[in-house]
């Protein structure tokens, strides 16, 4: 993590314990200087005094969602009125899926889980501030982990790549997680071929030279991480969030629809999914499966578009 400069962050949470926890984890991380606020109103006051006056401006505001009087979405709205440029993020101890509809309505693409590993939380906030260390599988595994790349040139090769990664994962993951990984690999792999380059679903496809698709995988001491890459860059963060919302809060039309469940199923079955998008350049979907058998009901929302 780049520690050349110190990032000034404001943490908003109505729980004294949670404020103290985040003040500790960010305060103990070189490169961060955290302040806290107990409510949205207090945060606005602090911003008026320190940020808008340039006395001690902030790089990032991280707010809890579920707070009395002013919830996290209202805090973000108020902050954006004061300074549309200030980067913001949301965090919750509740199920992130309960907020997906609101996130879609308000254009929020990142919601962090309080139950996540503190190091992951700090890394995510760092990346949201800098925009660095988002693309590339190496950013999601421990330093030194070997990254193996499999180029996919046609639909048959995708099957081969999925089988190769499943073979590597077999002794590391339990049966439920293997099922989730396989589903995620196929869903995101087919997305990268059919949707990214506009081929008819279900057809046998040989990609053109300019239509690159690759799967990369790496393992460290705790997890297997896979990146599914294409260079179309056609996927947008709005589309990803819309598809997730259709899976979580389906209308009758969504239920009877023939398609649109791939990303929702992948997020449901994998431990963590990060979607990185560079418009018209690159799409990178990172799937993470932890070796531990724990299953977390609540998963963060991590969609980054540069």
């Amino acid at each position, binding site marked *: 993590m780049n520690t050349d400069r110190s990032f000034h962050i404001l943490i908003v949470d109505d729980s004294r314990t949670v404020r103290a926890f985040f003040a500790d984890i960010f305060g103990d991380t070189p490169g961060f200087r955290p302040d806290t606020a107990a409510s949205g109103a207090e945060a606005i006051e602090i911003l008026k005094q320190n940020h808008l006056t340039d006395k001690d401006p902030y790089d990032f505001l991280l707010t809890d969602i579920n707070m009395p009087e002013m919830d996290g979405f209202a805090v973000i709205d108020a902050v954006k009125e004061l300074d549309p440029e200030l980067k913001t993020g949301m965090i919750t101890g509740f199920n992130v899926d309960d907020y997906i509809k609101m996130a879609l309505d308000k254009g929020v693409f990142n919601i962090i889980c309080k139950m996540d590993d503190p190091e992951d939380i700090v890394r995510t906030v760092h990346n949201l501030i800098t925009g660095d260390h988002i693309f590339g599988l190496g950013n999601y595994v421990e330093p030194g982990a070997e990254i193996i790349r499999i180029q996919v040139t046609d*639909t*048959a090769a*995708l*099957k081969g790549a999925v089988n190769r990664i499943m073979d590597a994962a077999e002794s590391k993951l339990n049966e*439920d997680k293997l*099922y989730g990984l*396989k*589903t995620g690999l*196929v*869903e995101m792999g*087919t997305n990268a071929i*059919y949707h990214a380059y506009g081929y008819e*679903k*279900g*057809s*046998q496809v040989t990609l053109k030279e300019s239509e690159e698709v690759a799967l990369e995988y790496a393992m460290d001491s705790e997890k297997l991480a896979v990146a599914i890459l294409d260079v179309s860059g056609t996927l947008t963060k709005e589309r990803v969030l819309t598809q997730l919302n259709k*899976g979580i809060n*389906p209308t009758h039309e969504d*239920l*009877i*629809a*023939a*398609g*649109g*469940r*791939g990303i*929702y*199923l992948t997020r*449901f*079955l994998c431990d963590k999914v990060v979607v990185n998008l560079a418009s018209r350049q690159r799409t990178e979907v990172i799937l993470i499966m932890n070796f531990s058998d724990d299953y977390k009901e609540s998963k963060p929302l991590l969609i980054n578009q540069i």
Partner: protein
Amino acid sequence: MEIEITRDGSVSLLKPSEEIHFDNYKEVEAILLKEIDEGAKEVVVDLSNVTTLYSMTLGMFNNIASKIAKKGGKFSITNINSDIRRVLKATRLDKLIQIK
């Protein structure tokens, strides 16, 4: 892809011999549609040999269920494993696709 078809009156039971994947689900769809066109009032797919249901197959089953319902018929799946049950529940398709 081989599909074993057993017909009993207007009931057709279809059993794929292997996984339904992104490159063969259209074959399965074509065979199911043919059964409906040829007068099957009830179509049952036996998933004994299928361990994983991907979204393309779920969508295809949705289409088949809708097409046969319009003709007054029924579509169902049988012999599903616990992972497939979990996926159907998560996508709420267990409310639309009958499980036998």
